[in-house]
């Protein structure tokens, strides 16, 4: 009996110390491993559908050499390259998302950093990607025009004095977007969201200048119902 107690106590102490340590390290990683495949926030560090440039060309060359890619090495990430990338990722046990991030780039043997340093700096690519993530988080399952509309609302807010004056400021404003608050916007945007973001940045605005949207089925704020509706697109109402 004595022996048994001792063994149990030792086991317990061991377990507690393990759980303390593992508990701590788990917690510190919480922000980066909450179940979503997190992606780098800076767009040029990843290559995705619609990317272009020397790094894309290099990736195409490698994918072609190894027989994954059959298109032309033109430096533009299109549908064929998407399929090739996914196939490559599947073969190499990487996350199959068609996005060449650090891990995939590493397996391909290309560097995402070097050719970045050569570009001259000013670019709207980061904004496209950020906007696309917000659109993807807020409007998954909506028709394409509904996605452009969400992106347009973000851009209308940037132009309006009652809101922050930058795209990041608007998207990350506390209490503004649920998909930002619950981390859904950290999912990788799909091609449609990227297209929608680009269209909105190029000027398309299906909402005719709206600053707000809400889902009439789920909106609980009394205040939002005092807004004037301008148009209904998909599940969302857009208004001012």
């Amino acid at each position: 009996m004595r022996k048994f107690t001792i063994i149990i106590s030792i086991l317990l102490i061991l377990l507690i110390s393990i759980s303390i340590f593992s508990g701590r390290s788990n917690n510190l990683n919480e922000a980066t491993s909450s179940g979503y495949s997190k992606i780098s926030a800076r767009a040029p560090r990843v290559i995705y559908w619609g990317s272009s440039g020397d790094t894309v060309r290099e990736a195409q060359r490698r994918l072609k050499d190894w027989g994954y890619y059959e298109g032309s090495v033109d430096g533009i990430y299109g549908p064929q390259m998407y399929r090739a990338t996914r196939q490559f990722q599947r073969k190499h046990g990487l996350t199959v998302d068609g996005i060449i991030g650090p891990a995939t780039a590493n397996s391909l043997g290309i560097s995402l950093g070097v050719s970045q340093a050569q570009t001259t700096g000013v670019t709207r690519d980061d904004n496209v990607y950020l906007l696309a993530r917000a659109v993807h988080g807020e409007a998954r399952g909506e028709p394409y025009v509904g996605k452009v509309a969400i992106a347009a609302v973000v851009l209308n807010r940037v132009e309006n004095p009652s809101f922050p004056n930058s795209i990041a400021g608007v998207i990350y404003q506390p209490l503004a977007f649920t998909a930002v608050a619950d981390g859904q916007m950290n999912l990788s945007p799909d091609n449609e969201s990227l297209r929608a973001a680009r269209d909105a940045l190029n000027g398309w605005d299906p909402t005719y200048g709206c600053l707000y949207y809400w889902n009439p089925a789920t909106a609980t704020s009394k205040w939002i119902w005092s807004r004037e509706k301008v148009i209904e697109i998909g599940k969302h109402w857009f208004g001012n």
Partner: protein
Amino acid sequence: MRYKKAIIPTILAIAILATGVWGYNQYRMRNYYEDQLINQYQRIFYDMKDNVETVQTSLSKSLVSASEESDILLLSQIYQQAYFAHDKLSQLPIGHENLAKTEKFLNQVADYSYSLIGRYIKGDKLDDKERQTLFRLQDYTEQLTAELQEAHDEILTGDLTMFKIREGEKDKIGEANEDILDAQMQKYEEEQMTEYPELIYDGPFSDQVLNVEPKGLGEDTVNEKEARKIALDFLGIKNPKDVNMFNKGESTGSSNIDAYTFSITPDNEGESIIIGVSIQGGKVVWMENSKEVEDKNISEKEALKIAKEFLDENGYTSMQANYSTKYDNSILFNFVYEQDGIPMYTDLIKVKVSLDDGEIIGIDAANFLKSNHERDLPKPKITEEEARDNVRIGFDIENVRLAVIPDRGNNDLLCYEFSGTYKGSDFIVYINALDGRQEDILQIIQDENGTLMM
């Protein structure tokens, strides 16, 4: 036998203990994160309070000041500090409904100061009306400072959490104590800001720029049926498979352009096309075909020809392409309206052409409809040679022409447009054709998808 009996309770005990330890750790980490977040918010709050106070004192000083130099310095301080305050305010977890007016106020204070600095530098003096406006702004800022001070005092007197971190934490901190700042901002906006007047000046955030009436729509209004016909004619579709209208709100003028929006399915295959037709004037505001373009079969030149012909057919005959950008296997052309051969850069129509079959897959004429009207252009008061003297020496001029560009308040400015290079970079310099002032400089950033065509 005795051992066997003890096994299950022991395992359970260990499990419970382990869960407890794990839970405690989670709890500790959660508190840690919350503290960090609150610290961050506290810092933003104190910084913002300082910014607002500086704005207030600078505004007061500018009212007393009789010296132009110190006026300019004070105004630039107001400009900077008001933007800081706005930026920080928008980072605090306060509901937008309690914040919108104050954000707008701070933004306008900054923007207004900036426009006044511009006037000073041009040699204009502030008139009585502008002094009055500054005086009123000072008043509102004083109230805001008082409100922030009150919030601060409340936070100090109690052991209170300053912000609601998340929904559903109401039980943790007594309801009466929570959201001090939220409540304070609400009180401020309800009591002080309702009377806040419209601010008219030359700047992007001024009320006359925000509430601009579209100039290019025309007089008559169309009903839904007429709009539907306009849309189908515009797209050249005779027998659509399906036409649906998007539900719209009562027309109250809260949108930029009041319009009917249709979703048109031309035939059994292919995506539906979305198109908006303005109620006033019956003009196509925008159009978009959401089809995904997978191939590239036609050249940019062919695409440009298609886009130009399309605009001509629809009555937009004085449009010149001046910029194109390729994305998603399609190409987007910016067309600028030309009056007497002079481009009006405010009157833009964008046309998107798919590069697989040359179909028009997007039109955006909203900007054109907002600003296009027959203009009474002034005659240039200085010659091209005189304007050339005001361009930096060493700027290698490749092309000169007249052009109309918008100023900060969206007013037309007739300028000489000098495009060229300086130290290897491409620039466009605009020199006012009436007084020879340099109005704007654009730097052209080349990338492999964009082409400037001028």
